[in-house]
């Protein structure tokens, strides 16, 4: 991807040089005619599955817009790359402004990478549309003049799920155990959850911070079993959510799993059969929670142990 872009830049450079030497103004006009759109999103790592959907989405939008004639008669020219991690995201953002000469920059899912790109945008006094990161801090204490935010922030997610839990009498006097992604997104989601429990007489009895590359959740689930909560809350992100949900069922817990973060793309990534389907005895519906019935370890896929309830989740992006 990178190499292709570099090659295109080189070709572009050669064309410009040719223009200067031989004077083909038409080529200069053609070069400046398109609107260059820079897009950064994680395509690798724990948010890579979500990023692949983001890239698919923006490509579809660009194709549709160009097929309809572009913007102000100019075609969109998309440069979409893997943002990898916060440091690389910042470097690539700077390169897109300086070398790729993007007219507008957009993207992200990872709150930590979104934060570093926002800082680059502010330093360069350039626009950045932050599409998919949910940390409250990005539009709160770290907000800046150059960045706009599309996605729904953590506090709003917690409040929305919280309303559904309250409706089902699952907050007051209940013991909660939270599993939290150990980076800015999870920290800030945990803070929102704590405010919610505090305001509504929920009792947080334990929390585990979990590194974003963890795939085996059994050590954390053993701690959950020991703590014996009423409700387990998932403040995880990306692949963490998908892996936890699959492993949670194997532990056969009696306490429901509630997700403050689950969204359309997480559901697509998990795929049919890996998300609990709604059942007749569903306690919670239309909340951002998911809940599984205790199931045996051997027959997760059998009808008898199939999860009966689901409270689905959150927001479509």
């Amino acid at each position, binding site marked *: 991807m990178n190499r292709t872009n570099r090659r295109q830049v080189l070709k572009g450079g050669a064309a410009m040089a040719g223009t200067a030497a031989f004077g083909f103004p038409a080529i200069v006009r053609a070069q400046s005619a398109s609107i260059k759109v820079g897009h950064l999103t994680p395509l690798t790592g724990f948010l890579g599955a979500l990023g692949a959907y983001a890239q698919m989405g923006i490509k579809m939008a660009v194709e549709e817009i160009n097929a309809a004639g572009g*913007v102000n008669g100019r075609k969109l020219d998309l440069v979409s790359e893997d943002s990898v991690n916060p440091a690389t995201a910042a470097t690539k953002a700077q390169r897109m402004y300086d070398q790729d000469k993007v007219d507008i920059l957009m993207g992200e899912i990872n709150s930590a990478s979104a934060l570093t790109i926002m800082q680059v945008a502010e330093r360069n006094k350039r626009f950045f549309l932050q599409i998919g990161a949910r940390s409250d801090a990005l539009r*709160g204490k770290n*907000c800046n003049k150059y960045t706009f935010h599309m996605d729904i922030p953590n506090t709003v997610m917690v409040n929305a799920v919280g309303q559904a839990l309250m409706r089902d009498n699952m907050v007051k006097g209940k013991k909660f155990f939270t599993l939290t992604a150990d980076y800015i997104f999870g920290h800030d989601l945990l803070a929102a959850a704590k405010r919610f429990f505090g305001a509504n007489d929920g009792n947080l009895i334990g929390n585990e911070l979990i590194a974003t590359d963890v795939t085996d959740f059994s050590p954390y689930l053993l701690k959950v079993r020991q703590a014996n909560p009423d409700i387990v809350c998932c403040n995880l992100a990306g692949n963490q959510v998908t892996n936890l949900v699959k492993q949670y069922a194997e532990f056969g817990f009696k306490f429901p799993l509630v997700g403050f973060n689950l969204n359309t793309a997480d*559901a697509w990534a998990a*795929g049919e059969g890996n*998300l609990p389907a709604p059942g007749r005895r569903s306690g919670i519906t239309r909340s951002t929670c998911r809940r599984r019935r205790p199931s045996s370890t051997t027959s997760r896929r059998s009808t008898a142990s199939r999860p009966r309830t689901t409270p689905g989740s959150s927001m*479509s992006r």
Partner: protein
Amino acid sequence: MKVMAQAMSEIKDTDNNKLIAHLEKQAEFDILKGRKGHFRNWDHQLMQEAYPFTVKAKGQAKDKWDLLALGPAVPGANQPLESIAPTREQNPCNLDKA
């Protein structure tokens, strides 16, 4: 992308300062939801409907994208979009800081 396309066509420009000024006027955008959305001028957060969902029972999905059954929009049609967003008191954003 479509929000940006609409904004750039409304200002007939790609100038980043003009774009920011336009969005800060709380211009309304079609965001493929029931109600249009706008960016709140003091924290640049998009004000929009949310759709809580449940998961369809196995076998009911038409294809691999059709897993979810959307519930009614939050906030309801008669409530302002801002009603689910943090207030100025709750959100410590200051866009004018040096």
